[in-house]
C-alpha cells in the first residue's frame, strides 16, 4: 500500500519534475525498470524484518520463557543464505543493465561536445562548424547521440534524469556518454557534482525534436539567417561591440568574439538566463547585464556599467538574436 502511495505521488505530484520514474530515454528507462525490480524486493525484505520484529515485541513479552536454543541456523538462513541468493540475482540484473548503459542501442549518428564551466554549459555540435550554444541541447528523436564531456575548470556531472544517468566531467580527462530519446519533449538536465558557489544554478534543457525540425534548428544555429535590424537594434549592436561584452562573449557575424562567457549568437531563444538562475525576458536580462551578481551571486560576470540610455537598445538587439 505504501508502495502504491509512493507510486501515485511520484506520478501525480510531479508532472514537470525531471523524474527518474517518468523516463523518455533508453538509458534512463533501463534504470527505471531496475528501480522497480529492486524496490519490490526491498519491500519484501523490509516487511520480513518488520514482521519478525513486531512478532517479538507482541508475543515475547512478560509471559515468554527465554529459549536457550541455538539460533545459528535461523540467523544463517535468513541473514546470510536467503539474502545471498537474492543479491546474486539483483547483481545479475544490475550487470545486464550496466552493459546496456555502456553500449548505446545504435551507432551514434551525431556527436555533441559538452564543456562544463563554472556555472554554465557550453555545447558544440562537433560535426557542424559554428554550431555553438549554451545551456541547451537539441537532439533528434530516436537517434543515438554521442556526448563528449570535458570541463574547463572543476569537476561537474552531466545528468538528464529522464534520458540518461550521470557521467562526470573530470578535469584532465575526456568522458563519453550517449543520449537516445524515445519521445519528443523538453527535459531538464543539471549538474550533479558539487562545483562551488553556484552549483545550484547550473541547469540545462534538452529539447528532443523530430529529425527534420532538428535539422533546421541546427542549420540556423550554425549560420543564423541574416537579420534586418531596426535602428534601435543597430545601436544596440554597436553598444555590444564597442562595450566590454565582446571581450567575453561571441555573437557570430559581429566583431564580438570573446570566449570566456557563453556564445550569445542565439541568446534570444534560450530558456533561461544564467543556466536556470532567472527567466529569459527583457526585465531579467536588463537586470542581469547591469548586475549579474544579484541574480546569480558569485558568477564570473562582473557588473556592466552600461549607460541607462543604451540599455533599451542593447536589450532590443539581444532579443532578436535567435
Amino acid at each position: 500500500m505504501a508502495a502504491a502511495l509512493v507510486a501515485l505521488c511520484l506520478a501525480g505530484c510531479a508532472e514537470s519534475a525531471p523524474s527518474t520514474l517518468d523516463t523518455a530515454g533508453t538509458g534512463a528507462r533501463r534504470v527505471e525498470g531496475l528501480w522497480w525490480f529492486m524496490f519490490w524486493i526491498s519491500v519484501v525484505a523490509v516487511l520480513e524484518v518488520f514482521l519478525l520484529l513486531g512478532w517479538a515485541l507482541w508475543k515475547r513479552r512478560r509471559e515468554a520463557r527465554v529459549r536457550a536454543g541455538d539460533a545459528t541456523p535461523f540467523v544463517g538462513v535468513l541473514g546470510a543464505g536467503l539474502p545471498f541468493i537474492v543479491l546474486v540475482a539483483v547483481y545479475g540484473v544490475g550487470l545486464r543493465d550496466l552493459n546496456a548503459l555502456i553500449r548505446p542501442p545504435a551507432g551514434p549518428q551525431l556527436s555533441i561536445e559538452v564543456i562544463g564551466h563554472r556555472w554554465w554549459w557550453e555545447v558544440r555540435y562537433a560535426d557542424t562548424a559554428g554550431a555553438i550554444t549554451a545551456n541547451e541541447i537539441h537532439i533528434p528523436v530516436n537517434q543515438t547521440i554521442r556526448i563528449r564531456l570535458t570541463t574547463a575548470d572543476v569537476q561537474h556531472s552531466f545528468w538528464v534524469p529522464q534520458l540518461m544517468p550521470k557521467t562526470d566531467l573530470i578535469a584532465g580527462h575526456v568522458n563519453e556518454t550517449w543520449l537516445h530519446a524515445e519521445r519528443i519533449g523538453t527535459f531538464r538536465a543539471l549538474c550533479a557534482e558539487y562545483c562551488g558557489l553556484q552549483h545550484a544554478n547550473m541547469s540545462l534543457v534538452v529539447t528532443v525534436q523530430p529529425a527534420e525540425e532538428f535539422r533546421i534548428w541546427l542549420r540556423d544555429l550554425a549560420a543564423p539567417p541574416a537579420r534586418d535590424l531596426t535602428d534601435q537594434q543597430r545601436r544596440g549592436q554597436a553598444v555590444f561591440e564597442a562595450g566590454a561584452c565582446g571581450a567575453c562573449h561571441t555573437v557570430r557575424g559581429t566583431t564580438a568574439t570573446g570566449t570566456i562567457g557563453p556564445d550569445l549568437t542565439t541568446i534570444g531563444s534560450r530558456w533561461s538566463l544564467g543556466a536556470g538562475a532567472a527567466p529569459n525576458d527583457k526585465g531579467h536580462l536588463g537586470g542581469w547585464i547591469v548586475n549579474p551578481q544579484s541574480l546569480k551571486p558569485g558568477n564570473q560576470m562582473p557588473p556592466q556599467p552600461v549607460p541607462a540610455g543604451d540599455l533599451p537598445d542593447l536589450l532590443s538587439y539581444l532579443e532578436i538574436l535567435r
Partner: protein
Amino acid sequence: MTTTSAQADTRAVAVARLEEEWQEQRSLRSWFATVDHKRIGRRYLITAGAFFGLAGIDALLLRTQLARAGGDVLSPDQYNQLFTMHGTAMIFLFATPMLFGFGNALVPLMLGARDMAFPRLNAFGYWVFLFAGLVMFSSQLLGVAPDGGWFAYVPLTDLPYSPGRNLDVYTLGLIFLGVSTTAGAINFIVTAIKLRAPGMSLNRVPLFVWAIVATSFMVIFALPALNAANALLFLDRRFGTHFYQPEAGGNTLLWQHLFWIFGHPDVYIIVLPALGIVSAILPAFCRRGVAAYPLVVLATITTAIISFGVWAHHMFATGLPSLSLSFFSAASVLITIPSGIQVFAWVATMLFGRVVVRVPLLFVVGFIVTFVMGGVTGVMFGITAFDMQITDSYFVVAHFHYVLFGGAVFPIIGGIYYWLPVLTGKVASEVLGRWAFGLVFGGFHLTFFPMHLSGLLGMPRRVYTYPSGLGWDVWNLLSTIGSYILAAGLLLVVLSVVLAVARGPRAAPDPWDGDTLEWAAATPPRPYNFASIPQVFGLHPAWDSRTLSRLASDEVLPGHQAMLTSELDARPQRLVSMPEKSLRPLLAALALLVVVLGLLGAVYWLAIAGVVATIVVVVGWLWPPQLTEAGAEAP
C-alpha cells in the same frame, strides 16, 4: 556466600588503601592531568555531543533555507560552508569521537581491566580531539569554514578555485584530528589484546569490544589514505606542488581514490561500534545473550575487511572501466550480508528471549527499523547502473542518513540511556525517554523519508536553492518540518539526561541486570574499576555467580597495577604498574596545536617552535622512569 569477619576486614582494609591510592583530588591541576578512562570517556561523550549540537544547528539552518523554493535565509556562500561543516563535523567530530567515548568509558570495564593500556596516550587523544574540533568550529565563527563539501573534491578545493583559508582549515584540521583517532585506535587494540581479565579468551570477548577492535584496525589502515590526501592538498595549496593539477601532470581522480579508500571504510568505522552498542544493549532487555555470537563476530570482522574493497562505488560515474566497476559493485553488494547476519541475530535474540521494553530497547528497535530501510537502499547503490542514475541526488542523502543516523545515532542515544548509571550513577526518566524516542523516531522519518522522493524526482544534493514547479516543493517542506520535530526530540534527550544527572535518583547497583563486566563493578564504578581482578568463565560474566564471588573475595590487587594476560586465551602473565596522572598529554596536545595554528596562518617560525615544543614534551613523557623500590617498572 559466607565470609568470616576477619576476611571481610582484610578486604575492607585493602579496598580502603586502593581508594586512597586511586582517588584524584578535586583540584584544577588534577582536572587537566587526569588519565582515568572513565573521566576521559565522559569528556569525549560531552564534547562530541556538543559538536553534534553545533553541526545539528547547521543542519537546521540548511533545512530552513530549503523549506521553500528560492529561499533566501542563507547566501550561497553561507549555505556551502554550512553543509560542508555539517558533514565534516558529524563524521569526524561527532560520530567517531562519540563512539570512541563509549569505548573509552566501557572497554576497560567490560574487559575487567583498571584502565586503558596507555592512559596518558588516552588523555592526549582527548585533548587533540578537543583542540581540532575547536579549530574547525571557530573557523565557522570567522566565516572561513571549509566550503568544498566534506569530500573536498579537487580541483574545486585546490588553490585556483578556493583561494581562501577555508580549505586549509579542512586539511590541517583533519590531519590534526587524525592524530587523536589513531592514538585512540592503537590504545583500544592493545587494551583488548593484553588487558582482558583472566579467562576472557577470544570467544568470551563482549561483542561491543569486538566491534571497537575491528573499528580500530580499520582506522589504522584507512586514516593514512586520508592523511596523505590532505597532506598533498595542503602542499598543492601552500607550496605550489601539482599533485592534483592536471594541467601540470597531476591527477584529480587521485584525490577521489585516496579520499574514498578512507571514506568508505569510515562509514563502517562509524557504524560498527554502534552495532556493537546494539549487541551490548540487547541481552539485558531480552534476558539472554545475542544469538549466534560466533556469526556476529565473524560478520563484524568480515565487514571490516570487505569495506576496504568497495571505495570505487563512490566513483561509478567518473568513467572508470566497466570491468573494474563490476568488481567494486560485487563487493558493495556482498558487504550487506554481514550486516544482514547481524540484523537477524538481533531479531533472533528478541524472538528467543523475553523482551523487556525500556527506553534503551526502544532505541534499538528504532535502530533496526531504520537501519534495515537504509540497508536496502544501500544495496541499490551497490548496483552500478542504479547508482549512476541516482547518486548525488537527494535519494543518497536519505540513504546515508538512514544508515548513519539510523545506524549510529539511534544506538548512541540508546547507549546513553543504557549506560547512564555506569557513566553518572543516575538513571534517566523512563517517561521523558519514551517521549524523546517518539519525537526522534517520528521526526527522523519525516525528515528523511521524503528525500527518497525528491531524489527520485531528480533533485540534486548540495544545492542552496531550487526552483519551484519541479515537484520538489512539498517534499522539502515536509523534510524541514520533520527536522524541527527531530531537533525537539534530541533536545528532550539532552534535557532528560541533564535532569537525571542534576536531580535524578541514584541508580541501584546494576539497574538493568546487564551481562557484561561493567555491571559487576560498582554503579558508578570506583576509579580503580575492580578491587579484585575478575575471573571470567563465559560470555556473560555479570550473570555468572563464579565471577561475582571472585570479585567479592579478599584477593584485592593492590596499588596502581594491572594484570597482563595472554592474547588468545587470556591466561595471566604478569602485573604491570599503570601510569599516574600527568600534565604532559595536555602539553603535548597544546604544542601540536601551535604547529597547526602556525601552518594555518603561514607563520612558519611558530610552526617550527611548536614542533620543537612537541619533541621536548614527548621526550620528557617517554624519559625512562626511575625504578621504584620494589624494582617494578613504573610507567
